[in-house]
């Protein structure tokens, strides 16, 4: 009996919280007609926004993957002063509202910020351009690879690396041949989660990008744009595109999940 209560509660919760809003979205697209949604998707500004989103992912994901692995190794394998602080700071983006992140970047690179005048003096446009959007995206997606890698590194311990050393491997060789293959599933999973986070980022990017259609709009900003201009069908269309991307990420994620155990 208790078993059914638990199941019913879990399923019901998911239905109401997750599935209902998404079903509504699909329902509306259907109602309004697919051609309108398609028009929004194929709009040059949407295609541009799609490109911007991909560019942000292409820069932020590899950078945060490398950083996440290095950071995970430092947290688990090394002893250094301020390690606890590093460990806590990695999680900061999880706790901090993206709006605050965006606002901080806005201040830092603004006309009176610490870095702003220097860049302006060298003719580099940071705010309301790609550089600030990249910085914001990197900021919010920092923790995910490190968070996946740290527990796996703890679990496998360092005996395999020590064995590699006694067999003549340098630390570099031990990393590439022993450590990285052992944590590969954690890294891949972290990459998938990071990608999902970059795709969906809205708040921080919204503030630093200025949301200029055809220039500094990402897909999420594009949805907001359509919505604000009362073009609901357009909003549905782009939202659908984001959903498709999310589903693709989810599929990759579930494909990888069962293999975690063998890592």
């Amino acid at each position, binding site marked *: 009996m208790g078993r059914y209560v638990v199941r019913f509660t879990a399923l019901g919760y998911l239905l109401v919280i997750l599935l209902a809003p998404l079903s509504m979205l699909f329902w509306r697209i259907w109602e309004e007609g697919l051609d309108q949604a398609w028009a929004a998707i194929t709009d040059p500004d949407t295609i541009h926004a799609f490109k911007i989103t991909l560019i942000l992912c292409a820069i932020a994901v590899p950078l945060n993957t490398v950083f996440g692995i290095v950071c995970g190794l430092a947290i688990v394998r090394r002893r250094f002063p301020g390690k606890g602080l590093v460990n806590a700071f990695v999680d900061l983006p999880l706790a901090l509202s993206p709006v605050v992140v965006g606002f901080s970047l806005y201040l830092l690179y603004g006309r009176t910020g610490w870095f702003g005048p220097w860049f302006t003096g060298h003719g580099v446009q940071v705010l309301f351009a790609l550089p600030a959007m990249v910085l914001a995206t990197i900021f919010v997606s920092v923790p995910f690879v490190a968070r996946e890698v740290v527990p796996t590194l703890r679990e496998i311990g360092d*005996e*395999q690396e*020590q*064995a590699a050393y*006694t*067999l*003549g*491997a340098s630390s570099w060789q031990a990393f590439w041949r022993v450590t990285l293959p*052992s944590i590969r599933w954690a890294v891949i999973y972290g990459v998938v989660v990071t990608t999902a986070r970059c795709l969906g980022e809205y708040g921080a990017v919204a503030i630093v990008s200025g949301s200029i259609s055809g220039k500094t709009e990402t897909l999420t900003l594009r949805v907001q744009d359509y919505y604000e201009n009362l073009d609901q069908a357009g909003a549905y269309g782009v939202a659908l595109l984001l959903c498709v991307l999310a589903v693709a990420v989810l599929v990759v994620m579930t494909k990888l999940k069962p293999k975690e155990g063998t890592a």
Partner: protein
Amino acid sequence: MSIQVRHVSKRFGSFQALADVSLDVDSGALTALLGPSGSGKSTLLRIIAGLEHPDTGEVLLDGAEATGTPPQQRGVGFVFQHYAAFKHMTVRDNIAFGLKIRRRPRAEIRARVDELLELVQLQGFGHRYPAQLSGGQRQRMALARALAPEPKVLLLDEPFGALDARVRAELRVWLRRLHEETHTTTVFVTHDQEEAMEVADRVVVMNKGRIEQVDAPRTLYDSPANEFVMSFVGQASRFGDGWVRPHDLEIVDIPDETTREAQVERVLHLGFEVRCELVWEDGEPFSVQLTRDQAEQLEVEAGQIVHVRPTRTRAFA
């Protein structure tokens, strides 16, 4: 390769793992580091391998100062208690690892791996992954992996500690034979005195970060340097101010001035011998080893009061 350890000390936080330890291991010797857990034996082995750095003191390999030499350049093979198998590699790739790092030609690697697979009796297992092997097979693979680059010293950290009794006994004999064939200087760590006595030529008894005695197994047993070695190597119990071994006590029918009374608690029939567990009048437990004939003749059984006479006791200053 000979090993010399000179006045090595090592602390982990407030724990003194090694306190001014010096040890000489001759080239080609088969040496056991024996002691209870926390005695510093593994730390000493890891310092010899270069996996741990001593706080003070030095390590000499073949007479040359090697304290700061990284493990990669020491020419040692190391075997871990929990195998430290490369889980994502096949048995072949595990064994070939050290050779690939050294960029040996492909054909040479293949030949050497085949040879080692045969040596550790894992022919036909080359393409399996460590997860598909039993504990004993995994440890044999780890041994083959350590032996592949032809190390000048083989170091084993509780190599059989995680295995069940039968496999352990097999591998002991096997290690002994391997050493007889290759004469590689070998040092292994164990907390099992029987294992140390059975396998090693020389046993280093350690306790609380210090070396208590270094001797051949027989000398260690017959002439222990102190109470710790007496009680840790082989069985021993207190008798008055001294110590006595179970086979140096006899149970007699008629009491005299050399006997003491004791009560039988249990009689254990262990195949070829019978062990009689008793307590002295003051409640101190001890045991006496009897042959099957003696036990039958004496008709000892639990609860009985008997007279016990020591034939040889040992006292320490």
